[in-house]
């Protein structure tokens, strides 16, 4: 029996291996789940490569009650703005409106109505309260594709010179504003 290769230590190591693997997987899942509740991890995020790139070329018409804007308008900015894709038919957009309305005095928000009828988008903004300094209409949704938008709501923080500094494909929350958006926006102010 002495030349048997499975010494007690080795056997204990072999027995511990599945536990270590299960423990590692558990820690991984726990981190993902806690990230989901904190908002730092979003499994639906598409990781559009828009970050630190200038905004794409686009020029969109007015959406009442606001005025439309183009890539040139964003590139000419000296201070950051939040660009928010929304639609009247989108439920999470309704949910994020109070948050945006609370933010509008600290950070200008420019809205883009995605594939929406002008009268519906107008009604939506009138009902929910208008957080937008300017509103453009993307009727065919093709400008949205250039931005890498895959649904609504989707929000970009555009820094001076029209460079995209932050992006989310989830509704904006209070936590995002205090933890991420405002610190970043303040650091981008001239």
């Amino acid at each position, binding site marked *: 029996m002495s030349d048997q290769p499975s010494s007690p230590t080795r056997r204990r190591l072999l027995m511990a291996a599945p536990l270590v693997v299960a423990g590692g997987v558990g820690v991984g899942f726990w981190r993902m789940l806690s990230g989901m509740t904190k908002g730092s991890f979003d499994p639906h995020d598409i990781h559009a*490569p828009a970050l630190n790139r200038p905004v794409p070329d686009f020029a969109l018409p007015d959406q009442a009650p606001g005025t439309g804007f183009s890539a040139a308008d964003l590139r000419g900015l000296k201070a950051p703005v939040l660009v928010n894709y929304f639609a009247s038919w989108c439920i999470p957009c309704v949910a994020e409106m109070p948050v945006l309305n609370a933010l509008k005095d600290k950070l200008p928000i420019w809205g883009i109505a995605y594939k929406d009828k002008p009268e519906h988008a107008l009604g939506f903004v009138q009902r929910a309260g208008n957080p937008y300094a300017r509103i453009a209409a993307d009727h065919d949704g093709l400008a949205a594709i250039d931005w890498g938008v895959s649904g609504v709501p*989707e929000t970009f923080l555009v820094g001076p010179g029209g460079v995209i500094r932050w992006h989310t494909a989830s509704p904006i929350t209070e936590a995002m504003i205090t933890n991420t958006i405002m610190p970043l926006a303040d650091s981008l102010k001239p």
Partner: protein
Amino acid sequence: MKTHPLRRGGLIALLACLFFAPLVALAVDDPSEMLPDPAQEQRAEAIGAQLRCLVCQNESIEDSSADLARDLRHVVREHVAKGESNQQIMDWMVNRYGNFIRLKPPFTIGTLLLWVMPLLALCIGIGIAWWTFRRPRAPAPPPLSDEERRRLSDLTETR
């Protein structure tokens, strides 16, 4: 958490899809979407089959009836009609939506493990098999001595 264009009447659309799926092989539900040149249309379909619908996420844009998929099909056809190469159109899409839009992930550092995993698993298997069979079997015990044989017969008799 997000409302996609699909969500509008999603259930009705889903039921309609299930009902009509056997009737139409492709989601190009409107023939006017198709390019007039059959060769170009075929190319557009081949490209679209490699692009992920970002709403349904496990369907290609050719298979999906989501609004965004229809828009992306339209964009692909526009680029094909302009005479761009498959690679140019793929790059255009990846530039906007990242590698996630490619149903077949490219071979990069990040996807290295994904691509080499079958080979790696085979190597590990061969390694374990080799390690197991290489070990010499425990040598057969020496034959019993006379003394031991006597004790054994005593024991079996008393039973």
